[in-house]
């Protein structure tokens, strides 16, 4: 098994250790700078105690099904079913660092598997390890876990089998495993639970061997989600549902001019209101701690604040003007692609257009929520969070306690989409825990606070110049500009990241199109409104720019948009998703009063093509069909992948049609679901998804379904009406039913 050898050389030893009331299996990492999340230096993914088998899936469940898929990696190698295991997130620990997320930051296109690209990707694992980032994001959980967690399961199985061999006096090779038992040739069955203690003392005789794909019984097949029943019965516990003895409930109000000062506030009315325990200052505002959340929210509305000015231009028009003025040499951030000689090629009859997209809120269904308890020199934080190890850092810094005195319980998230990688609500709840030391406090933001205090998807502009020759794009000069998400988001965590921000050009520079003269330039606008990772990050805007332009050029060339793309892409898996979606949508057939549009984007290494069909009705445009084809390399759970692609399309279409955060007087003008309204069921078209497995590497799928949605819809509208819309949201230019 090549994979085992490759990982083993990097310094992993498999093993097990007795822990309180049970045994943990996983691997040891020698020369690790980290303490051990459980006991004795072992980095565990499996724990067996008297109650059964627990799998640690150290990535946060925000709806993407990651707990089910990660558990299946371990269960597969242990010959267990998912019904036989319990799945927990486990402790916040640097030992669960995510190497795949930084691997995607390297300046090599995902289609580049040459030795240099692979070597640099490998080297990037080193900083990820030393930073000790336990991140859920970047569609990286599955690529990161694919080897690690299967190996942990295989190691646990080997130890259990070896323990059984010792007990029965039967050679290891004659034993098999099934359903939580080691089974001898004579039919004797020894349960994993009974063998666990003996297995803790086993030194593995050989490296664990992974199953071949042909032997998989869970992986590669759609699995029932481990959280499906709890989420259909009201039993699932999100942070907001935590109930602890003596718990107090709180909410906050902070300056809606984000980052602006609080010149003062008058809480005298609020302090006298029923149920109010106290009003506490927090960074940028104040919090009310009360007996119930509703009383806290009522009282927060009664505080009179004197807010300071916004530290950025106060209106959308002014913010947009700064963006437009940022296409300058000194603001040039990256030129990741510069093939041929674009400047020489772009002469004569040149196609030249500009596109724009607005700021967007994440608007998770569960508003920001966190709970904390500071008691007896220890801090415990409960939160659905994408960066639990960062909470350890913040908790120690804000309380003065050593990091070992901080515990993080990662809860289910009522939606993440990148929003729950921010520390604002965490810092606030720790301040509240200090103010009511000894008592647990649950902080819940109002919807209005949530919508108006985001790290928004940045507004962005693009300028595209191109030249056609012989029905193809001969020269393509793509320039895009936005504030830097990495600069803004890392800055809020207290880090500065040197070098260009790949997110500014993500979803544009690495596309597998082959134009003879091809340049992609990213311009970094000044930091203005706080911006953050929004599902699919830079690809969310760049796919709209890129695929709208390619579509315009196809029509200009008089070539069918599918054939036009296929004529200029030679990457096999990318061609296949385009061909698949054309077939699924019956691309060549047009029904009266309807038209289809196509778009393609490779993001996070996953090629995705989508087609959307629209119809003109008396009430406005209506989407009548949506089709997607995506290639993830190895489809571990096809049903979940379908759900992720389909859901990401809906998230992208919500933004494409109506999504917009605008600013006036330094404040977001939209504050709830009436004015930042996602798609509702009647607007949602039927969606069909096909999952392909042509890529060489396994890829994650939480985000790549999103980017092609907006341009596919815009291209369909053009095909139907002849109206080319170059600015999102589309609903500003056309009416939707």
């Amino acid at each position, binding site marked *: 098994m090549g994979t085992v050898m490759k990982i083993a050389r990097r310094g992993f030893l498999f093993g097990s250790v007795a822990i309180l009331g049970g045994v943990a299996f996983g691997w040891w990492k020698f020369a690790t700078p980290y303490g051990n999340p459980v006991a004795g230096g072992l980095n565990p993914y499996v724990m067996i105690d008297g109650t059964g088998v627990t799998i640690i899936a150290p990535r946060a469940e925000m709806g993407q099904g990651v707990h089910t898929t990660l558990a299946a990696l371990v269960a597969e190698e242990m010959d267990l079913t998912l019904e036989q295991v319990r799945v927990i997130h486990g402790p916040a620990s640097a030992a669960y660092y995510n190497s795949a997320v930084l691997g995607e930051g390297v300046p090599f296109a995902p289609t580049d598997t040459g030795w240099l690209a692979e070597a640099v990707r490998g080297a990037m694992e080193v900083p990820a390890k030393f930073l000790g980032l336990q991140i859920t994001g970047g569609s990286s959980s599955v690529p990161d876990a694919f080897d690690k967690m299967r190996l942990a399961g295989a190691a646990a199985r080997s130890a259990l089998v070896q323990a059984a061999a010792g007990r029965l006096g039967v050679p290891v090779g004659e034993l098999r495993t099934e359903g939580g038992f080691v089974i001898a040739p004579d039919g004797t069955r020894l349960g994993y639970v009974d063998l666990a203690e003996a297995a803790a003392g086993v030194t593995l005789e050989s490296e664990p061997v992974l199953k071949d794909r042909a032997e998989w019984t869970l992986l590669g097949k759609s699995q029932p*989600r481990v959280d499906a029943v709890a989420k259909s*019965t*009201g039993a699932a516990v999100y942070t907001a549902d935590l109930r602890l003895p003596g718990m107090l409930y709180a909410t906050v109000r902070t300056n809606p001019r984000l980052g602006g000062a609080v010149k003062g506030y008058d809480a005298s009315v609020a302090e006298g209101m029923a149920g109010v325990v106290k009003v506490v200052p927090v960074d940028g505002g104040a919090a009310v701690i009360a007996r119930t959340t509703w009383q806290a929210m009522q009282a927060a509305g009664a505080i009179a604040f004197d807010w300071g000015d916004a530290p950025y231009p106060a209106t959308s028009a002014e913010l947009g003007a700064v963006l437009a003025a940022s296409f300058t040499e000194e603001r040039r951030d990256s030129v990741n692609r510069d093939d041929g000689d674009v400047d020489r090629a772009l002469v004569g009859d040149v196609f030249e257009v500009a596109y724009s997209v607005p700021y967007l809120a994440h608007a998770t269904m569960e508003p920001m929520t966190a709970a904390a308890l500071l008691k007896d020199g220890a801090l415990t934080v409960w939160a659905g969070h994408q960066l639990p190890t960062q909470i350890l850092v913040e908790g120690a810094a804000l309380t003065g306690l050593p990091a070992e005195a901080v515990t993080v319980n990662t809860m*289910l998230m*009522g939606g993440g989409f990148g929003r729950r990688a921010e520390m604002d609500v965490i810092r606030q709840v720790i301040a509240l825990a200090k103010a009511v030391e000894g008592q647990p406090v649950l902080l819940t933001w109002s*919807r209005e606070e949530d919508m108006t205090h985001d790290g928004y998807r940045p507004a962005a502009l693009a300028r595209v110049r191109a030249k056609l020759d012989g029905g193809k794009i001969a020269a393509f000069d793509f320039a895009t500009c936005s504030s830097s998400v990495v600069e803004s988001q890392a800055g809020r965590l207290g880090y500065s990241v040197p070098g260009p921000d790949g997110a500014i050009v993500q979803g544009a520079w690495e596309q597998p199109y082959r134009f003879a003269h091809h340049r992609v330039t990213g311009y970094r606008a000044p930091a203005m409104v706080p911006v953050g990772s929004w599902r699919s990050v830079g690809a969310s805007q760049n796919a709209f720019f890129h695929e709208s332009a390619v579509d315009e050029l196809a029509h200009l060339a008089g070539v069918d948009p599918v054939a036009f793309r296929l004529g200029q892409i030679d990457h096999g898996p990318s061609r296949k998703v385009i061909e698949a979606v054309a077939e699924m949508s019956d691309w060549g057939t047009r029904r009266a009063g309807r038209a289809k549009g196509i778009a393609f984007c490779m993001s996070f290494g996953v090629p995705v093509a989508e087609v959307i069909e629209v119809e003109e009705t008396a009430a406005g445009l209506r989407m009548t069909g949506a089709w997607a084809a995506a290639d993830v390399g190895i489809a571990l759970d096809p049903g979940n992948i379908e*759900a992720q692609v389909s859901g990401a399309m809906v998230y992208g279409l919500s933004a494409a049609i109506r999504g917009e955060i605008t600013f006036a007087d330094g404040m977001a003008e939209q504050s709830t679901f009436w004015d930042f*309204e996602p798609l509702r069921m009647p607007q*949602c078209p039927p969606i069909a998804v096909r999952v392909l497995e042509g890529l060489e590497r396994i890829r994650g799928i939480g985000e790549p379904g999103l980017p092609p949605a907006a341009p596919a819809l815009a291209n369909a509208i053009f095909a139907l009406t002849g109206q080319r819309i170059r600015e999102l949201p589309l609903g500003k230019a056309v009416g939707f039913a």
Partner: protein
Amino acid sequence: MAVSFTVNGQARVVDLPPEMPLLWVLREGLDLTGTKFGCGIASCGACTVHLDGAAVRSCQVTLAEVAGASVVTVEGLGQGALHAVQEAWIAAQVAQCGYCQSGQIMQAAALLAENPAPTGDEIDAAMEGNLCRCGTYPRIRAAVQDAAKRLSEV
């Protein structure tokens, strides 16, 4: 002021401010946390419960208004077992983050109690007030149809 009403078939007496929305009475007075807070202004449907059999947004109903009434939440929908709508939800693997699903399920159950065989358009219209940010709408549609079939076979 103590208010008496029935929750999931049980008589309850709650001593909380009469103007407190039912949502918060359920969540923090009775620790029935399956009913979710999403917006507080009836724009998302996450807090949907049944009030005397009708689907309502519990953020818009005060404690005083439910005096003597019968309230059913997602915890009590199946009366100790899974309701056909919940079975259909699990079979269709609807939930992603799951936060909106209690409200979706309560809305769907109310629809089917009133209209046992809804058309696609009727399902869309009945479910319009329930937002889902994970985009599970296609599976919700299929699950409502499946639940209708399950209920008709009982």
